[in-house]
């Protein structure tokens, strides 16, 4: 579904990703793990078109999207759920969700999708007129995920979905991501919490200094002595 070959990304002169290659098949849940500065977030930015790569090739469903505009990539079906501030703080919950469907013209379907999301996350419905910035961290995360789903993506990129959340919310977030995958949406996830990420994902890529150093299924990597020592602290 998604194929990356020899990806190189730079911030000015600093290379953040060097010659990275990876592949994601339809319906998979793939995670990228690695230390700070390994190039995980950069890779996601390159996929969604926010940061055009210097070299390499990214294809999605057979189409070359290496230097496509973020808008085009979104239209093809890749939604990006960026890390950090995940919502538009002064817009209401409803408006945030509407922004998620910004490129869609099918009004009736948008309303249906929104109804479905509200059924899934009743708390968002009860707070729909509240400014998103006043929601709790967990609620904001739900909103961010819901917003990403409002574009009806085929592939969702999650950047650090568990960052800054209380442990029980982290678990809840991972449950939601699992649910998304169960609906047939492909997921690529960047995660600091290597243990949780490996447990959750079908396959995983371990990144170090902008390169893939290891790859395998979640359970393979969980039992790999090197991964254990470096990322799981065991």
């Amino acid at each position, binding site marked *: 579904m998604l194929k990356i070959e020899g990806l190189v990304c730079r911030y000015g002169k600093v290379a953040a990703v060097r010659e990275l290659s990876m592949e994601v098949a339809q319906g998979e849940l793939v995670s990228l793990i690695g230390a700070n500065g390994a190039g995980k977030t950069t890779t996601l930015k390159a996929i*969604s078109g*926010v940061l055009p790569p210097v070299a390499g090739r990214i294809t999605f469903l057979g189409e070359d999207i290496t230097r496509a*505009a*973020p*808008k085009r990539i*979104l*239209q093809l079906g890749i*939604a*990006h*759920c*960026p890390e950090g*501030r*995940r*919502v*538009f*703080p*002064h*817009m*209401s919950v409803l*408006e945030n969700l*509407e*922004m*998620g469907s*910004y*490129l869609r013209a099918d009004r009736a379907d948008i309303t249906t999708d929104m109804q479905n999301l509200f059924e899934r996350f009743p708390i968002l419905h009860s707070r729909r*007129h*509240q*400014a998103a910035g*006043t929601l709790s961290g967990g609620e904001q995360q739900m909103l961010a995920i819901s*917003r990403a789903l409002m*574009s009806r993506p085929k592939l969702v990129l999650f950047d650090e979905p568990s960052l800054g959340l209380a442990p029980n919310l982290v678990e809840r977030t991972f449950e939601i991501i699992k649910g998304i995958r169960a609906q047939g949406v492909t997921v690529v996830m960047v995660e600091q919490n290597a243990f949780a990420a490996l447990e959750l994902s079908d396959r995983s890529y371990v990144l170090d200094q902008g390169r893939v150093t290891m790859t395998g299924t979640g359970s393979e990597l969980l039992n790999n002595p090197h991964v254990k020592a470096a990322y799981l602290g065991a």
Partner: protein
Amino acid sequence: MKQGLTIAWLLFLASVPLWLNNLYVLHVLIMAGIFIIAAMSLNLLLGYTGQLSLGHVAFFGIGAYASSLASLGFAVHLLPDWQVSVDPKPVWFSMLCGTLIAGLCGWAIGRLSFKVRGAYFVIVTVSFAEVIRLVALNWVELTQGPMALNNIPYLRLGIPGLFELSFLRKPANYYLVLAVGVICYVVIRRLVHSRAGRAMIALRENEPLAASVGVDVTRYLVLATIVSAGMAGAAGALYAHYVRIVDPDVFLFIYTVTMVIMVVTGGKGTLAGPIVGGAIFGLLPETLRALEAPPEVQWVTYGVLMVLVVYFLPDGIVPALRNWWHGRSAVAAAPAPEQASTEAAR
């Protein structure tokens, strides 16, 4: 009820020249009106897209100069043996030219400077305004430099031989400014409530996120700059044909600062904010003068009031009033808080 209030306000504003026979006060109102239009245009950039243009007066001045020059006609040597001359054009056409040329400059500045954001954008706009001021000062053949453009014709509208409206006297100019102000208000209102406006607000709120949901960042920033610059240009054109003399001082930095003060104290990112801020800080200096306070007291009062507003109402007067109003109605009726938060989100 809200609509009724708007109509009542408009009727009141329209009735002012009928009962006010003090021409000096009317002049003050006209000037405040022109500044309010400029402040509204700045608000589109500063309040809705979050970009601080500290060279906004450049668009105002470009509108004033372009409109005056088109209505006066001019001849300049672009090369030693190549002269370009333009015959005097009707004033309404000149004013449109002023608006369009200012908008065009907005487009150029927008394209150039939205590669840079924040402090860098501020610097680009400040330098732009300063360069334009120096051009106006030194390109004597075109602008008359410090001698200023004099005897700028006033606006006349009508069908020759049938009737003519002349905008020489103050009441006529008052209505003209009011009409342009209402048009600008309606345009901005429609714009910010449209898809494009939603995109602009999303940009202000969180630019990377806006890009990630498919908002074409540069396109909407440039669009906002064009509209904003065009409106500032229209305000400049109104100014030129009302005051009927334009000199390079229209580019002074202090006018930009005044606009920023009006927008920020009134409430940036609200439709009414620049109007309220513009009314207060546009009328205050003249009011203090009328009270015959000593000059230093006048400026100290102006400054202190500004500091007080910014300190106690950091979001501006309009949002503060709105919160207060909704707070009151929330106590009175139960379902109100929901409404209050949507309004606050706007």
